[in-house]
């Protein structure tokens, strides 16, 4: 397909430009379907945090209220009853906490997986609406990785990072309050240490983030290299090019190793930094607390409680720090996801639609919901407020069409042609003359810059794209089949087709013969673009697929070029039957296949240089004559 392709090497850097905006959009997604769920999650988080805080505070109670009295009145018979009550009370809190965290976890799974599902679905729905140009200008591997790698970053983000941050925030606030109540001085020490902790974490995180970005970029390069080389593996073998391929691969691989090594080293440092600074903070608090207890300012139980609060305070901070990298990665992923979602979809301002009609009182057409098999264009005229019906015939006119894939460079100039219903128009010319490009225009895969294309007298820009395309059959240069049975693939052309229709279409395309020879016949499963079939067999299926759709206009792009000539002749007969009564545009290199065309267009560098029937063109002894006789000189 000679079309424009963008620079495939220009993979976007995995770094979000506006993390705040990305975060809001992710939240928007979560809230769209799961707002009540999320509200419950938040309630659960608060509940479980408060419950576990109760547990921590219980330590003080345990020591001050129950244990210390035992130690003080050594002679008295200890009364265990209040202790049993206290334990029972805490047990209830604990139970509530467990239930809350269980509900929270269960709900988060649904929220996470559900959000990922709806993002995937929205991505796909959006992708299906994008213009062909998008697919021609983006590396296919890159588009696919959005569905896998980038969506995957959301899992960590939604199920871990977001609740963790929220949980941590609540824990930090509630613990902070308890700490201040217990001892402002010890709180001050703790907070100073947290400052140190954040500083160190920030340093390590910044460095690891930098190398993670580098790692992602290198990973992209290595992936790209592998993809290209493995795809061309057979060519490498034929040219004994293995050695230099390995050299280049090793270079790229080593760079990736270096980035990954550094990124992981810094990321791994986060844990020990936080843990040991936490220990340090504990020691300093113990010293301060010890001094305070000695001077009688606080109770021993308070110091013990405070020390465990100190741990509870440091833990969430280091947990948030641990999430830092996955947040960076998720933001980069979100940017790519929303980047695709924000692409401009194919615009369709067409209002002329294709409807079933029946004839009433002689010639007048009337719209009907019945499947009459008779179709007409329903055209509403705004200025006169009338609707008229034009029967679907298959008349196609190009009127001074100019086209370029980019505005700067035109590839087609002033194309003029008319195909009357049932006529066969053939395009010939050397490679790169623009023959294939023409087929991209009738169905509006690309919009033309100047001139007009009319279908049954209606400007194609006014026709609804779906209806326009439904009225056109296509067999493309490269055959694409889908995973499913052979029958499914033929049915792609007409969804509700019966088995008989499928077989009839296959027979017309001469595909029936090879299909019935397969062990599973029409139910043979095809995978990987029909890898188990030969190129010719795949094309036969593509022809059958077009045959079953039964459109009034056909576009055949070198459809028969790699079917062997014997099969091709039989296909040709079928195709001739199929083309009978249909307007057809055929592109082929073999002049013999286009000789019975009603009009042959000879193209050269984006222009039609000669047109006419075979006999007329031979008579002219021009470009066509050279091309044609080239067929038999050599």
């Amino acid at each position, binding site marked *: 397909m000679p079309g424009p392709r963008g620079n495939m090497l220009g993979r976007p850097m995995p770094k979000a430009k506006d993390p705040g905006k990305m975060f809001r959009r992710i939240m928007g997604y979560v809230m769209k379907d799961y707002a009540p769920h999320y509200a419950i999650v938040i309630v659960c988080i608060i509940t479980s945090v408060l419950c576990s805080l109760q547990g921590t505070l219980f330590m003080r109670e345990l020591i001050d209220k129950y244990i210390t009295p035992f130690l003080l009145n050594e002679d008295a018979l200890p009364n265990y009853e209040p202790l049993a009550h206290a334990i029972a009370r805490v047990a209830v809190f604990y139970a509530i906490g467990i239930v809350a965290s269980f509900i929270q976890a269960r709900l988060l799974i649904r929220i996470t997986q559900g959000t990922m599902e709806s993002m995937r679905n929205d991505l*796909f729905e959006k992708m299906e609406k994008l213009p062909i140009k998008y697919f021609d200008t983006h590396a296919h591997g890159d588009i696919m990785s959005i569905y896998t790698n980038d969506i995957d970053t959301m899992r960590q983000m939604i199920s871990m990072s977001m609740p963790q941050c929220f949980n941590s925030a609540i824990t930090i606030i509630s613990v902070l309050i308890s700490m201040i109540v217990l001892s402002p001085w010890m709180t001050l020490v703790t907070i100073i240490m947290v400052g140190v902790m954040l500083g160190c974490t920030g340093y390590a995180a910044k460095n690891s983030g930098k190398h993670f970005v580098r790692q992602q970029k290198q990973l992209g390069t290595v992936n790209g290299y592998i993809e290209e080389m493995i795809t061309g593996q057979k060519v490498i073998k034929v040219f004994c090019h293995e050695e230099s391929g390995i050299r280049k691969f090793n270079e790229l691989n080593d760079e990736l190793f270096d980035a990954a090594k550094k990124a992981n080293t810094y990321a791994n440092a986060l844990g020990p930094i936080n843990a040991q600074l936490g220990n340090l903070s504990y020691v300093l608090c113990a010293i301060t607390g010890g001094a305070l207890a000695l001077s009688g300012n606080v109770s021993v139980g308070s110091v013990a409680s405070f020390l465990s609060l100190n741990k509870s305070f440091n833990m969430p901070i280091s947990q948030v720090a641990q999430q830092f990298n996955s947040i960076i990665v998720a933001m980069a992923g979100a940017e790519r996801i929303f980047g695709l979602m924000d692409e401009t979809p194919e615009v369709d301002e067409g209002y002329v639609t294709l409807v079933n009609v029946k004839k009433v009182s002689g010639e007048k057409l009337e719209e009907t919901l019945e499947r009459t098999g008779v179709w007409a264009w329903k055209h509403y005229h705004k200025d006169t407020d009338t609707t008229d019906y034009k029967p679907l015939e298959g008349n196609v006119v190009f009127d001074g069409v100019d086209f370029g894939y980019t505005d700067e460079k035109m590839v087609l100039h002033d194309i003029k042609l008319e195909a009357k219903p049932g006529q066969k128009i053939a395009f010939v010319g050397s*490679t790169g003359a623009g023959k294939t490009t023409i087929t991209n225009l009738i169905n509006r895969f690309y919009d033309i810059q100047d001139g007009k294309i009319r279908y049954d007298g209606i400007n194609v820009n006014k026709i609804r794209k779906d209806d326009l395309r439904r009225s056109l059959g296509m067999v493309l240069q490269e055959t694409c089949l889908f995973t499913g049975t052979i029958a499914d693939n033929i049915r792609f052309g007409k969804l509700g087709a019966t088995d008989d229709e499928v077989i009839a279409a296959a027979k017309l395309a001469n595909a029936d013969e090879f299909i019935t020879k397969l062990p599973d016949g029409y139910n043979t499963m095809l995978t990987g673009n029909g890898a188990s079939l030969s190129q010719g067999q795949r094309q036969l299926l593509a022809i059958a697929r077009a045959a079953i759709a039964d459109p009034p206009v056909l576009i055949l792009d070198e459809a028969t070029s790699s079917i062997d000539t014997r099969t091709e002749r039989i296909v040709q007969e079928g195709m001739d039957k199929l083309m009978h009564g249909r307007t057809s545009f055929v592109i082929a290199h073999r002049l013999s296949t286009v000789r019975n065309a009603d009009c042959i267009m000879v193209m050269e560098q984006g222009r039609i240089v000669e047109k006419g029937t075979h006999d007329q063109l031979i008579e002219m002894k021009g470009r066509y004559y050279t091309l044609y006789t080239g067929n*038999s000189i050599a």
Partner: protein
Amino acid sequence: MVRRILSEVKEYTLPSLITPLCMILEVAMEMVVPYLMASIIDYGVYAGNMNHILKTGLFMVLAAIVGFIGGILGGKFGAVASTGLARNLRKSMYENIQTFSFSNIDKFSTSSLITRLTTDVTNIQNSYQMILRMAMRAPASLIAAMFMAFYINARIARIYLIAVFILAIFLVCIMLSATKIFRQAFPKYDELNESVQENVTAIRVVKAYVREDEQISRFKKASQAIYQIFCKAEGKVVLNGPVMTLTVYTCILTISWIGAKMISVGDLTTGELMSLLAYCMNILMSLMMLSMIFVMITMSAASAERIVEVLNEESDLKNPENPITEVKDGSVSFKNAAFAYNYDKGGKPVLENINLEIKSGETIGIMGATGSSKSTLVSLISRLYDVTEGSVSVGGVNVKEYDLEVLRNAVSVVLQKNQLFSGTILDNLRWGKEDATEEECINACKMACADEFISRMPDGYNTRIEQGGSNVSGGQKQRLCIARALLKSPRILILDDSTSAVDTATDAKIREAFRTMIPGVTKFIIAQRISSIQDADRIIVLDNGHVNGIGTHDELLKNNEIYREVYESQTGGSGDFDETEVD
């Protein structure tokens, strides 16, 4: 399997060994800390001994520093070891793939090789790092904490033992049932990816037939299947949390109750109770870690399997012991040759009883219906596949006796499914001959009729080719591929349907150039167009893996039915063609 993966650690063995040692150091310090904390409370705070607090505090700071060093070094060496293993795995796999024969390549799909080299290696890297850093750490921490707990108070420590036992059973059950579901998830992911891939590559077909809605609903089905399976699997994993907290809380309460009683009778100190509670957390956290490692290992086992498959795949084409390093001439002979794909698995022969004698310098046309094994026949000449019966000789020597590289340099093949690589046109041409001068390249291009369009490009021979050659047309690509093959100055040139997208006039010019400029080279031309082969010295007609006829154009026209039928179908047998035929 594990041994095969580990054998790739190589130069990263030392870091791999140091990492767990560092982690043990960190764990040891983590164990000491609660003990010191208890000491601070008991003998410092309660006893009112500030000196003791300061002294023990100093020890704690020292322990923290040692632990920090252990942690940092463990992290660093862990990173080096795991990313190093990943590097070696990628390297070994890539190098092994380069030794693959065509039939090895056919066995693995391209996309699966790519996944193995990327995603699967990353999986292994992550689990290896996890195992190095945690596998020693978690059991060490578990045992040490247990030991300390028993040291402080054996009676209470027994509670831990029971708790650990119960918890371990629960965790194993949960994990086993979860991994079973996770395994089902992988094929579902493949389905989803397939759907995306097909829609990306076949978007023109989807749009041409207005099947967007149908494809969307198909995708949604796959997408929903993943949602359900993950909800189910993670729903099980998530039980871990509550079971774990339940055990922790139960332990804390039981210990508080028993501990308080023991303190009242003087069997336990307050500080000891505090440190026992801290060890309790340690023990249960280690268990949690162990269960996570368990999941990681089972999840990455599938990746390891797929990697080992590639590493252990042996090329079924071996260089002979004392290879012949010179190809004398371009003569080719087939003796009773037969070939079957997947022969060892009982594949049916696609070529049988092939006997051919081809002289050096001959031009041989090959034609036949789709699936008549034309491409397979010529693949045997450069030993892209080995014959399953009989033999193939080049220059009078069996192809199996040549050095593979020598043979393939002498036999230049232009594949039917050809490919250009990203880089300039010159770069691509030099695949044929690494040190080719620009002049040599231009000459080859002139012969392949590629010079005319290259010199029209703004950057000429320095024009960049995009990945897969997407910025040149099909015909231009074919001509570049022919030029690339010519640069090898081969003894035998094989064109496998290589001019199908080239117009007939150019096609004729290329063949004319072959005849006048490289007359000594044996040429095999596979084509659908009779015009491409009708002037060949001899034409082989293949039918269903057998030679149906062999001879010149005129001979075959007379006595070969298949050939005549094809000829007539292409010429239409009509009068006006005869007028234009120049003979």
